[in-house]
């Protein structure tokens, strides 16, 4: 057992070493987005003053704001703005296909996906929302500790080539953010999205792609292997395949976009060679305003 212990610990330590940089980067990224708490623009439970209204029958006597009432003859009740904490559930594709970078200067897709997810979490947490991971392990909660737990959970990896989104544990009428390359079988995703829509969950599909996957810059006799090695495709002339591959990729994007439209979700595509900040801004806006149907 001692033999297996040591590698496990070593791996665990190596993993935890990656956490603080990821957190730091995510924090730095999140700081670029200036934001405030978003009020609901109507009276409700909250700390901020919203309006005084005349006392109506049924109001508790203790609810009367005597200071305001003393300045006039009528009696007023002080109302606070209603603030609603949303539950946002994250899902980042842990599959092997995300661990791809076509060039050593480019980040892996998984790396970018985690960064975006964690940065969004930070922003949401600062906005007072509750953030969690899909599945039952990490239900949505508030607080900085949740961010650390999310960061830890994001480090999990799967050995499979493609993973289907886990849509358990969704809070009804909550929000969800799915980050993946969506290169696997689209059927589970479709089912998951329909199920989510049925529960009133809306959200965002963030499609992360490597530039090589967009450009397909390959030539000559090539054997293409999936990242986990479960699939391979041999071609004699890779350059002949490019047009057809790009067609298929465009079709996949179209399918995702239409699926998102049908279910009230939002779809966005992000490439790892472009900056993470623009993607973060888009993601945050899409999550926070998507509920309003924007």
């Amino acid at each position, binding site marked *: 057992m001692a033999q297996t212990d040591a590698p496990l610990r070593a791996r665990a330590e190596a993993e935890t070493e990656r956490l603080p940089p990821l957190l730091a980067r995510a924090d730095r990224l999140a700081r670029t987005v200036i934001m405030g708490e978003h009020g609901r623009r109507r009276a409700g439970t909250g700390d901020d003053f919203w309006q005084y209204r005349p006392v109506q029958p049924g109001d508790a006597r203790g609810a009367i704001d005597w200071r305001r009432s003393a300045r006039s003859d009528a009696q007023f009740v002080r109302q606070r703005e209603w603030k609603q904490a949303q539950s946002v559930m994250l899902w980042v594709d842990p599959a092997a*296909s*995300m661990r*791809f970078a076509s060039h050593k200067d480019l980040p892996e*897709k998984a790396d970018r996906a985690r960064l975006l997810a964690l940065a969004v979490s930070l922003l949401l947490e600062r906005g007072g929302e509750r953030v969690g991971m899909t599945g039952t392990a990490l239900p949505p909660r508030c607080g900085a500790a949740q961010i650390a737990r999310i960061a830890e959970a994001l480090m999990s990896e799967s050995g499979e*080539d*493609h993973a289907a989104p886990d849509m358990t544990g969704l809070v009804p009428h909550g929000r969800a953010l799915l980050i993946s*390359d969506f*290169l*696997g*079988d689209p059927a589970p995703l479709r089912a998951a999205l329909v199920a989510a829509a049925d529960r009133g969950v809306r959200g965002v599909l963030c499609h992360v792609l*490597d530039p*090589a*996957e967009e450009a*397909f810059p*390959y*030539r*000559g*006799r*090539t*054997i*293409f*292997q*999936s*990242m986990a090695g479960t*699939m*391979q*495709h*041999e*071609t*004699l*002339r890779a350059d*002949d*395949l490019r047009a*057809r*591959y790009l067609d*298929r*990729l465009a079709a*996949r994007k179209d399918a995702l976009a239409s699926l998102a439209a049908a279910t009230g979700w939002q779809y966005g595509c992000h490439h790892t060679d472009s900056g993470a900040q623009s993607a973060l801004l888009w993601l945050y806006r899409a999550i926070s305003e998507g509920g309003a149907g924007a």
Partner: protein
Amino acid sequence: MTLGAIGFATPWLLWALLTLPVLWLVLRAVPPAPVRRRFPGVALLLGLRDEDSVSDRTPWWLLLLRMLAVAAAIVGLAGPVLNPRDAGGAARNTPLLIVVEDSWAAARDWQAQRDVIDGALSEAARDGRTAALMRLSAPERPVFRAADDLRSRLPGLMPEPWRARPETYAEAAALLPEGGIETRWFSDGLAGDGREALLAALEARGPVVVHESARPVLALAPPVLDEGMVALRAIRAGAGGALDITIAAHGRDPAGAARVLARLPLGFAGAEATGRLSLPPELRARIDRFEIEGARHAGAVSLSGDGLRRREVGLVAGRADREGLELLSPLYYLRKALAPNADLIEGALLDLLPANPDAVVLADVATLSEAEDSALRDWVEAGGVLVRFAGPRLAASDVSRGQEAALMPVRLRAGGRTVGGAMSWGAPKTLAPFPDDSPFRGLAIPEDVAVTAQVLAQPDPTLAERVIAQLGDGTPLVTRKRLGAGQVVLFHVTANAEWSSLPLSGLFVQMLERLALSSVQAAPAEAELAGTVWQPVQVLDGFGRLIEAGTRAGVAGERLLDGTLGPDLLPGIYQGPERRVARNVIGPETGLAAATWPARVPIEGLARAPETPLGGWLLALALVLMLGDIFAALAVSGRLWRGGVTAAVLVALVALAPHAARAQAGDDARAIEATSETVLAHVLTGDRAVDDAARAGLRGLGRVLSFRTSVEPAAPIGVDLERDDIAFYPMLYWPVTQTQPIPSAEAYARLNDYLRSGGLILFDTRDADIAGYGAASPNGARLQRLAAPLDIPPLEPVPEDHVLTRTFYLLNDFPGRHMGRAVWVEAAPPDAARVEGMPFRDLNDGVTPVVIGGNDWAAAWAVTERGDPMFPVGRGFTGERQREMAYRFGVNLVMHVLTGNYKSDQVHVPALLERLGQ
């Protein structure tokens, strides 16, 4: 099979080249290995089929690379040979006869000729043929034997300094065996009479191939003195294009070293090139030989012998010349006779002799002072020729009267005699024919030479053998006596025309020539040579090198100049009874004619490119190409850089080679650095802090030395005892640490050498606790172990009168960072005692090999690069004073190392001054 200059050992293999196009097609059909790529989008690719079933073709350059590799391998295996030996007549199995004209003319291309012979023999050895070699300089019956055996004797084949005589060819032809012979004739390029007979005999036995160097034969005719200049004439066999040569005059310079004294460029237009070389007589007289530069054969060397020498003759007259009576001057006719061919010196006798003339003529000089007499006698005995002429003074004097004077050949009767004068009976006397043993033998006597007066010799027993010329009545005219290595000659008449008409005749000049008074340009006359034997002194070999003759037999004078050169008459310098004569290969009339061969005889040159097998190179090229193909194939399939190990191995291979060279260069640079300036050195202990402190300490000491003394050391150097040479450093600072490894035996050997040859090691235990207590501290114990194998004399604490206390500063103690106890140096000899009145003892000589202490001097000396002290010493002003004292100790120590006990000697100065004053 041959293709231009390239032949093939197995030409049928070249048919394999026809498979190359097939290979081309096959290689094109087979696609390159696929590139394996990780690609997440493979899910989107699944199910896509290739539209075109033909794969991507192999890149053309890769195809070309492979074809080249295969072609190189095929051609390489076919055994290509550059400049193959003629393999056309491979079936020949007749014996091979090599005829060599090994004359001096062949020496000009001897190496090439020998190489060609060697090639022919090795070819014959490959074919299993027997071979024989016949030298035409001394033909012998050819003995056919294994060609390899003959090859091993080739290095002994040398050219001879003579050519084959016409009859030699016939002799050689007679020696040839019957039966078929293939002949290779290596000609020397000169025409030879009688050669046709041998050629015909050889052609009757088989094919003959003539090898002849294309370089023309150049030769140098003997130099001739012409109007005071040396006329040189170079000849060549056959005409040709313009050719520039340089003739070098070799000789000895005044210091006696052989060197080239002059050079004369000559240009050939036709068969001859002439030029004149103007040289001062002194220089000309020293020339041994002329040589065509770069020709390297005996014909290009012309020995000058005595031919170019102008004698120096001192003339001394007995009475002052009377003004206006030149014709009566006793020296007038001598000058006229000698001046064209000799350099004349006139003056007082004692002034002449230091110039060491070849001859001295005393015209009517009777008495000589004692100094003159002895000087002249020494000079004659050393080989000088003294010629005296009689005259009124000699006749009137008492010289050699009762007793023969040393510098007179005979005793003289008083008064002399006059014959045929106005007051006497009888006619003037004429000369009798010269006796056979006279140096004048053979000279024609003009009839009009008459003698009217002479001095007469006393009839002594030795008179007859001393007479070398006499008058018709038998009275001596010229007598001669040998004295030591020289001779004394007396003409019994005057040197002017007063007593005889001899000086007016041509005979007078000839007689003087025979006496070697003037240089003889012309070859010695036959009459002079007849009956003499000339001994070779130095002879020329075929390459024109002068070698000592050793015990070679003498040569009869008749043959010397005219005889044909041969084994019994070599060119060289011959010593005769009176003079030296040079016998050259080329005489004044010798001409050179190029060899002509019948048109039917094939002639080949010697410049034949060596046979070079190319197969190995081509196979290596194929291997390199295949190696390149491996990398190219890897690159095409994208796996070149995944195999990073390969690249690493390659890089390592490339990086490994120059490493040793760098280390070597580093050693040299270090030695130069250490010796170009005074360098203080410290021993590297392996403890980084200690080493740095030692380095900084020596740096600080060096600064102080530069500021205050004339010693300006360069930056200090750390010395690894195992690796570095320590002999360059005047002094080693050795801080002792506990962890220091004990040096190896070799390092100790070097250290002991260093100590014995005057080096000094300053041991510093750095713990202020050594003296007196020895191994009390760990560092002290370590020091004992480190120093045990060293050759260290008995030690003592520095006595107060030790020279170390006053080499620069006057010091009482030697503090470093610690105010230490005594410092130990080599003990004074037990008998050292203080001299009365002297402040110091006269202590041991030399430098103490070791200084041992524990005061951590380096720390006190240490400064940073900017000059700030690195370590605190003591406290406050006292500490600074201590640091200053430490520096002063360092200065004293370095001064002690560099100047030894100089300051010990200084103490003697008062005593010396005191003694000198009295």
